[in-house]
């Protein structure tokens, strides 16, 4: 027999059970059981994408997704950094480098069935050029502004630069002619950037009128860029779904792709921001590949049977000498410090296999690299003598490094900092360590507040300007360097449309830079990518631009 109090819980249970039954009766499963039987290929990415339209993005994760779905006029060779045809089979430039003619591939169809024509290409460029309002914020059109400058009508609120794009003309069905106002060596590389993925006419029509809304400071991206279903490219995969609550993008093989069909029927990109969590997910079999493997994990993963293919290097890490610092303004001090750092030790003990000491501010895989730059061998005795000669036996320098971050060119910032600090102390320099979180680190280094600091760059496309032009085309607070001769020469070389002369010019510039010695190039290192044993990996790219359609199950 139940007492009054013991009936109460039973009553609650009965109510809960009834509610569940009612709910169960109401809800029907609507999941799609159709589709392939093949298991999806799951790749652990360091972050989620920011938009389905790569034009709006400036982050590597959005581009990793978009490269599978959209194609650009030009591309990089599979597994390399040479520029090759993309949607354009061939291309040519006018003598002055301002008119670019692209001969498009025949028979290319978009995911929604539309055909690729020169008019479609021009419609894409015209759309970008005519964007208004918050689209002109540097956060929403970063690469357009970097490559093609501003817009047809620049909005003062967003202060975009002067436009470099003049127009696009569909000369015939498969010939698109793009004109720019002045030649720059960012071409033709700029045409290969993932931000300029070509979309179908139906997509462009659907995008029309979709604005970035919200009041100033609170922009909301348009719906087409947030919900799968609108955007259609020509790539080997179509976008099936972007599940934002799980930070997951699902791609499906596009059966009418003009090239070799994708090896995986379904590919899923899942965000795992934590580096250790990515490794453990691979080891536990939850994912089949991930990027930015910590150098210390490479050997254990290989021993455990995972594949860690080596990418060619396409980045540079450097130690910057900020010349507003009195001591660092002296060339002899900079030379002494350059002799003090044992760069080979960093390469041998910290970087993954394939890493190498850098002799100049861009990798040797790139045209413009010079074998004749001034080099600085590790020689602590010489460094000590040089500092003494310069009257800086008791030099004290603040040395900044970033925390809680890894970059493809800088896999373990604190470890690299430790080695260099030790080397500097060895020659009598007193190092004052200063650590900053990444956002503040960039702020401090850009503002010239760090006399010594570590930074680097991974190239976006195959041109020397993308490396040395980024740093030495004008005065920057980050370097405190004011060398008119160098800046003028950079301008001259980078606007020379003759490829051979330009490459020779870059070689000369690299030599000039190493004479000026604004910093010490430390290393170029291949960011590692890992795959499970049952995967035939795609060709790994030095630009970290893998085309996953090349991969398949073994």
């Amino acid at each position, binding site marked *: 027999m139940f007492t009054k109090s013991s009936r109460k819980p039973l009553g609650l249970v009965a109510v809960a059970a009834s509610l569940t039954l009612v709910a169960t009766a109401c809800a029907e499963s609507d999941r799609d059981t159709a589709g392939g039987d093949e298991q999806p290929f799951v790749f652990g990415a360091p972050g989620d994408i920011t938009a389905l339209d790569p034009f709006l993005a400036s982050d590597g994760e959005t581009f990793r997704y978009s490269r599978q779905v959209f194609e650009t006029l030009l591309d990089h060779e599979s597994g390399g950094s040479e520029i090759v045809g993309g949607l354009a089979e061939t291309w040519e430039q006018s003598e002055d480098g301002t008119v670019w003619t692209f001969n498009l591939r025949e028979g290319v169809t978009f995911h929604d069935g539309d055909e690729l024509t020169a008019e479609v290409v021009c419609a894409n460029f015209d759309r970008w050029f005519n964007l208004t309002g918050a689209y002109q914020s540097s956060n929403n059109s970063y690469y357009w502004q970097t490559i093609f400058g501003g817009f047809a009508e620049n909005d003062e609120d967003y*202060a975009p630069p002067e436009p470099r794009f003049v127009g696009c003309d569909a000369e015939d069905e498969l010939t698109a002619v793009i004109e720019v106002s002045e030649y720059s060596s960012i071409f033709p590389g700029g045409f290969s950037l993932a931000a300029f993925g070509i979309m179908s006419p139906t997509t462009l029509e659907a995008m029309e009128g979709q604005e970035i809304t919200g009041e100033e400071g609170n922009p909301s991206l348009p719906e087409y860029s947030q919900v799968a279903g609108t955007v259609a490219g020509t790539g080997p995969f179509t976008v099936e779904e972007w599940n934002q609550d799980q930070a997951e993008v699902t791609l499906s093989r596009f059966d009418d792709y003009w090239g070799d069909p994708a090896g995986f029927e379904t590919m899923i990109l899942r965000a*795992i921001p934590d580096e250790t969590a990515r490794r453990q997910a691979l080891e536990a079999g939850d994912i089949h590949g991930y990027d930015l493997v910590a150098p210390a994990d490479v050997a254990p993963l290989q021993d455990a049977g995972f594949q860690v293919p080596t990418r060619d290097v396409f980045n540079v890490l450097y130690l910057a000498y900020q010349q507003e610092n009195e001591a660092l303004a002296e060339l002899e001090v900079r030379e002494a410090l350059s002799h003090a750092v044992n760069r080979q030790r960093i390469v041998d003990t910290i970087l993954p296999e394939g890493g190498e000491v850098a002799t100049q501010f861009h990798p040797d895989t790139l045209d413009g690299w010079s074998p004749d730059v001034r080099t600085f061998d590790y020689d602590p005795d010489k460094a000590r003598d040089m500092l003494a000669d310069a009257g800086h036996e008791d030099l004290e320098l603040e040395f900044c490094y970033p925390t809680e971050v890894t970059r493809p060119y800088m896999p373990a910032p604190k470890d690299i900092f430790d080695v260099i600090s030790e080397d500097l102390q060895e020659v009598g320099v007193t190092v004052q360590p200063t650590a900053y979180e990444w956002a503040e680190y960039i702020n401090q280094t*850009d503002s010239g507040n760090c006399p010594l600091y570590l930074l680097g760059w991974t190239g976006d496309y195959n041109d020397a300007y993308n490396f040395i032009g980024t740093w030495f085309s004008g005065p920057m607070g980050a370097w405190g360097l004011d060398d008119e001769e160098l800046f003028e020469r950079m301008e001259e070389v980078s606007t020379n449309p003759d490829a051979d002369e330009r490459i020779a010019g870059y070689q000369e510039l690299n030599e000039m830079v190493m004479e000026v010695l604004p910093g010490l190039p430390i290393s170029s290192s291949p960011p590692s990518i890992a795959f499970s044993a049952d995967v035939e990996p795609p060709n790994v790219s030095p630009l970290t631009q893998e085309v996953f359609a090349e991969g398949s199950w073994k």
Partner: protein
Amino acid sequence: MLRFIVRRLLQLIPTLGGLSILLFVWLQRLPGGPEYALLPDDATDEQRQALRRSLGLDEPLMVQYLSFLRRILQGDLGTSLQTSRPVMDEFFLRFPATFELGVTAMIIAVTIGLPLGYLAARKRGGVLDFAAVGGSLLGICTPVFFLAFILKVVFAEGLGLFPSAFRLSPGLGRTDITGFFVLDGVMTREWDVVWDALAHLILPGLALASIPLAVITRMTRASVLEVMGEDYVRTANAKGLHRTTVRTRHVLRNALLPVVTAMGLLAGSLFAGAVLTESVFAFPGIGSFVYVATQERDYPVLTGFILLIATMYVFINLLVDISYSLLDPRVRAQ
């Protein structure tokens, strides 16, 4: 009771108002800005300044604060700088994940902690007591990320019993009704989804439960020990009441009062604890979103998260007070 609830809810206004000022000042003093986190490393000063301007970060502090306050009063937490989607939408999208994880952790902590604490008190000085006290001390001292790491190495990588990451296996289709995967799975009778979602909750749930479990165990033990020495328990025993009745109605019920208060506060702290646990397990809830927001200097998300936690604390305390009245008739009488 209604007046009591309304009064407590009104207390939210000055609490959140004060907190909003503190938050605003703190965020302004946070080094680095979104213009450094959101744009690529090679962005020019002009591009960074243009972004600051377009985000309204160049406005005077007072103007920024008033606009922030106006939005908050309209129930608008602003737009995430990382995703350009409304912060409220982002939280609603991820709330079910964090809530499911929090509930799992609390279920683990309560179902193990209460009986363990009670039994440790009953067998004071015994092996179980020693294990419970030692274990709970270890639970409090062990950093969550380390525990998570060990759990993953043993149960995910080693034994392969549970997944090491995510909320659901990639590619497993499901019907979305409420966003709560387990509940949705039950409602639609997608039992594979229910099992898969539960399997994904176990390891992060255990990691997140470690501190509440330790606290509940220790508090229950201490409280039961105290109550067992009370006169009314001795009287009840002397009256010849059944042992079970004495234990449940006299000892446990009275011993639970302080434990319930602690449970309320612990439940609130789970949201903050979820930041680390979710990141380690790549569990896509509010916690892992906030973890990335911290690195990206996503001010609106950080502000929204802290306001959300504060509101949760107030509500949980309210629930604790209400549950007090159910457990203790004296509170009800007042």
